[in-house]
């Protein structure tokens, strides 16, 4: 398996097949007695910003300090939760709605969409 080709930037789906973001970053564990191992996937705009430039990251952090909706800027999905790596998507044993990956979605539903005509139940 090729880390960058087969894992990074891939679509993540939860156990019901709901889209829950992409693999924005990968955390590796460097072991003294063997090759590095994937410890977790990282999700979040801050993770993406860092890949562009550290300055973009610090700028985003500044924004986040004022208006964040998400409880954690970086959401980590441990490798143990990975169910299956398929062509085009990675399935994890979680429920998207219960994870920080859905914080923005749920906040928007409650605070914006619901107040627009036809956006309620």
């Amino acid at each position, binding site marked *: 398996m090729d880390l960058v080709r087969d894992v990074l930037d891939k679509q993540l789906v939860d156990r019901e097949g709901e889209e829950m973001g992409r693999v*924005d970053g990968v955390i590796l564990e460097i072991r003294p007695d063997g090759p590095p191992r994937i410890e977790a996937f990282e999700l979040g705009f801050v993770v993406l910003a860092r890949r562009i430039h550290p300055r973009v990251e610090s700028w985003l952090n500044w924004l986040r300090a004022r208006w964040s909706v998400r409880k954690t800027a970086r959401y980590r999905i441990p490798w143990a939760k990975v169910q299956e790596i398929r062509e085009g998507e990675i399935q994890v044993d979680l429920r998207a709605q219960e994870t920080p990956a859905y914080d923005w*979605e749920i906040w928007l539903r409650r605070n914006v969409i619901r107040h*627009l005509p036809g956006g309620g139940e």
Partner: protein
Amino acid sequence: MKKWMQLALGILTGVGGFFDIGNLATSAQAGASFRFQLLWSLLLATVFVIFLVEMSGRFAAVSGKALPDAIRERFGFTFWAGPFLILTIIHVLVLGAEIGGICFALHLVSGLPVPLLAPVVGILVWLLLWRTTFSTLENSTSFLGFLTLAFVIAVVVHHPPLREIGAGMVPSLPHHDPAKYWYIAVSIVGAVLAPYLFYFYSSGAVEDKWDCKYIGVNRGISFIGMGFGSLIAMAAIVVAAVVLAPRGIQVDDYHQAALMLTDAFPFWGFVLFAVAMGIACLGAAVEVGLSMAYATAQTFGWNWGEDLEPREDARFCLVYTVAILISSLIILFGVDPFKLTLLTMVISAAALPFVAIPFLLLMNDRKTLGEHTNGWISNTVTVLVVILSGVLALVSIPLTLIGGS
């Protein structure tokens, strides 16, 4: 049978989606200033768009993935972030031009000032996206898109000189205003090869759950649908050449373009132009808005789909809501829709490399497409588009400065 229904719908989508504000503005300008001489650039762009649309549909049918999704996955976020940001800005401007076009069409029939109509039109476009499903949109906007056939009927009424039309299909050097000539040629290519078209079409194929069985249908849709749309744009050039050019009318505003159909349809021409323009722009506005939401949701891996209720994909809906809001504000603050249209066509042409280059790599990816990768003809055309897009990126901005005024 169901697949053939898709073909019919797809052709309708082509009619509704191809001919928009950009084609109207550039066709009117080309015909009024250079008669039939710029038909070749439309023909060339049509050949390119047929191939690129076919590729984006084939990719979606085989892989089950739309283009923005595949580009982020294959090329990574660091490659895609820049183009994605630039295309998003372009699409907000294009959406502004389309909304401005609808406002202008309403202005023609109501006499109300264009900026004042922007809030009403913005809400109308938003409601269409907010309340309806994908297939309803596909059917309604494209069915009404048939009204743009008025341009083709006008051509028949006018009996234009066929030999001159034929001669216009072959590239030739201009006799006057070379900078303006090349500037319009570039704008025509930018108007036809609109980036949103490919993101919309491939996402639509995913929404309609296409698989490998649709490859033939997809080929038919691309060829007939885009060809038909191009026919209307060509008809608009011919009508502008016959009606506007002999009177020395130069098009630098939609008011002049609105005279195009008055010779062929003495009483109804004006209204017919307004209706055709309004419908064409409405169809395109819906497509641009959706395309932005598709591209953003796929780039970040959010849940998406026009058939979901707004509360089921809040972030997806927020994207088009904000886009429509900003675009309507641009028109409300008094930006001239015609100037905005021409500006966006040139910027679209300049951004074409971002759209074209991913095709070359994605369409030759054996791991994803298996036996359905590009053949040598498609690859040759893609390489030509990439080369052309590079040239356009270099010349479009300088040309605007010399030939655009």
